[in-house]
């Protein structure tokens, strides 16, 4: 990926400036105003996991004192940093700024504190009020905008570069376009068969989405993807030979066993038509977009309201309910990951809501997103098989008027 090459270059020459950020509700557009490049510790961690390299850094971090119950993303990232491991084998720069763009996940506050402590880089916590009301208030937006402006001043000092407002605005414009195209892609999954898997495939598209969203390359990439997928819809071409089941998946994937996990669904010709995890960086399929006419406010709104992690638990229930209804899903798969309490704490209640209140067939399974040790293949396979067997029976016996 060209992005990692740029980071390698920054490690050698200190140019361009780099900012460590979290994916969720990121403000990558603001970085564009400085020509700065994001470093996403989460992406580093998941890249290690998917390449089966996460266990060593996790064990190293545990030797330092991290607990079995700490988020394994953090352990892999910190462990890898201290051991000098990177996902591509290249170098990662010391960030110009560690920007904890806190949205929802309290673990990030700790993670970035630790990154700043271990790298010696300066830390700024951009606090985003959690969505405890239906919509953000004027005070919420004002608070985030004030901090974005403080951040601009801080970055001007740290990079020695003047903030280029026009470039920022331009990035916001590109983001709005990328979001439009990405949203159109998401909506293609409403077709039957869906031309792509809105969990497994959407996840692999998250990298370009979060790194290149505010750039012409991003728009171009997703326009190309949209065109290809539209052709697939016209040809009635789905992900598997047949599309026997349409599901909504909630929760992050088990990255260390990504392929194995995917195959457990492929075996049943099941396709995810929507997923919450693919909205971590932004929830656009319900209409929200960045607005180049109000760049600061729209970045603030994006951070506040338009990403799944800063939305409250019941808003997530509603999001999944809309997917089930509007994307025509047969059931919901809840994947509890041990590492992430933001996603997982309370998912039993979510299951209770979907099965008992809405009557949607729901499967609840557990593993982890980063730690390869928490993956019981046989058990997961049994649970998934039993679920689809029951769902098959349910579909066969349900009358069309149901």
């Amino acid at each position, binding site marked *: 990926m060209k992005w990692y090459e740029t980071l390698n270059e920054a490690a050698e020459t200190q140019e361009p400036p780099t900012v460590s950020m979290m994916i969720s509700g990121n403000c990558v557009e603001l970085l564009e105003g400085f020509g700065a490049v994001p470093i996403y510790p989460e992406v580093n961690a998941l890249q290690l996991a998917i390449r089966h390299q996460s266990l060593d850094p996790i064990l190293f971090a545990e030797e330092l004192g991290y607990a079995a*119950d700490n988020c394994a993303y953090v352990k892999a990232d910190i462990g890898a940093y201290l051991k000098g491991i990177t996902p591509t084998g290249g170098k990662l720069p010391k960030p110009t700024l560690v920007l904890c763009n806190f949205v929802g996940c*309290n673990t990030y506050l700790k993670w970035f504190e630790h990154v700043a402590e271990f790298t010696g880089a300066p830390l700024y*916590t951009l606090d985003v009020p959690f969505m405890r009301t239906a919509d953000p*208030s004027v005070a919420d937006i004002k608070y985030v905008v004030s901090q974005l402006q403080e951040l601009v001043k801080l970055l001007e000092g740290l990079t020695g570069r003047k903030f280029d407002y026009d470039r920022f605005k331009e990035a916001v414009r590109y983001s709005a376009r990328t979001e439009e195209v990405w949203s159109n892609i998401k909506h293609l999954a409403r077709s039957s068969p869906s031309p792509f898997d809105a969990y497994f495939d959407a996840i692999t598209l998250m990298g370009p989405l979060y790194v290149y969203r505010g750039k012409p390359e991003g728009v171009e990439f997703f326009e190309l993807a949209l065109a290809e997928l539209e052709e697939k819809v016209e040809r009635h071409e789905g992900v598997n030979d047949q599309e026997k089941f349409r599901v909504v998946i909630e929760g992050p994937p088990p990255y260390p066993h990504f392929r194995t996990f995917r195959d457990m669904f492929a075996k049943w010709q099941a396709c995810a038509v929507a997923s919450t995890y693919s909205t971590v960086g932004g929830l656009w399929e319900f209409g929200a977009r960045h607005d180049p006419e109000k760049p600061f406010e729209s970045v603030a709104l994006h951070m506040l309201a338009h990403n799944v992690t800063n939305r409250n638990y*019941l808003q997530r229930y509603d999001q999944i309910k809309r997917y089930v209804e509007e994307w025509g899903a047969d059931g919901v798969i809840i994947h509890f990951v041990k590492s992430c309490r*933001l996603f997982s704490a309370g998912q039993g209640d979510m299951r209770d809501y979907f099965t008992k209140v809405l009557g949607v067939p729901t499967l609840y399974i557990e593993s982890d997103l980063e730690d390869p040790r928490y993956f019981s293949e046989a058990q997961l396979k049994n649970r998934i098989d039993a679920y689809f067997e029951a769902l098959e029976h349910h579909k066969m016996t349900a009358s069309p008027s149901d």
Partner: protein
Amino acid sequence: MINEDIISDLNFSTVRAWKDQHSGGKAIGYFPVYAPVELIRACGMLPVGLNGAGDQLDIQYADARFGSFICSIVKTTLEMGLTDHLAPFDGLLFSSICDSARNLCFVMKRNFPDMYIDFLHLPHNPSSASSTEFLISEYRRLQQGLEAMNGRRVTDDSLNEAIILYNENRSLSRMLYDERARQPHVLRTSELYPLVRAGNFLPVEEHTALLRQTLETLGSRSGKQRDSIRIVIEGSFCEQPPLDLIKILEEAGCYIVDDDFVLGPRWFLEDVPLNGDPLRSLADSYLNRAVYSSVRHDFRKPRHKALLEKVHRRQAQAVILLIAKFCEPAYFDYVLFKQELEKENVPHLLLEFEEKMFTFERLRTEVETFVESLLFD
């Protein structure tokens, strides 16, 4: 009721008694730290700190709702709701202290749709000039919610009055903490802890009287010095360890000279100033006068530095990191605490507890070994 009974009473008799005495009076339970109790009080309601259910409740339903790897206090709070133990409460208040507590708030909302349940976002960026204004607006939002629920306005006078009452209460707690650090053989933690924790369940005036009474008796007491080491306890700010565990720590040779137990009623390090704008004063106090903990974020001053200062101020010889099982914020801090303590040659011991644990033999052995290694060093 004696303090030990008050803190383990799942019938919330003290809350029921207050409601019997105050016709139409409402009680608001808050998840245990950093709640603006003054606002609740100023609205004429009784703020009650929820500290989980200890070992008093078998979990029947909450495990299935919260799954594995989630701390006990989150589950017992939900369990109390699902088993009708929270009946004396008219409302519940949560805040942005951790991911599990936050999700709990919304799970409670779904399961108890008729109850007043709110979530406060406490700022994580106190360095920003806009944080105070934001927190004022957040407190105002809460205030309006409480007023609408209770049909009673909060005036500046009632808020100032509440601030005075809680300032007095916290000031007495601080004095008792100082006294304990000065003579831990006279005021033992197994006495101080239930006394302070009872404040979660009592009207503030009643609790203040209890604190004062204890403080006044200290002068006439004598205690026998023991071969013990001076210990700071860190990590038990939310879920609370069983009282028996604290007794065991003392029996095993620890003079506990500072701790972060029950931070709820004692979270300001100094008085909230009375300067004519009480909401601003409360907001400013959260940002600038609040005690550090693993769930309050202020990157202007790292917590590990604050812990070290505490160790030096109390002339402690060692630190016991007493962490609730599955408490992720405390476990994260452990890494940096450990690093800092080792850099400064302060001995430390990590112990894990659960509120519902009832056998302590393994912990006793660990603590005894730790204490002996220091006593005969």
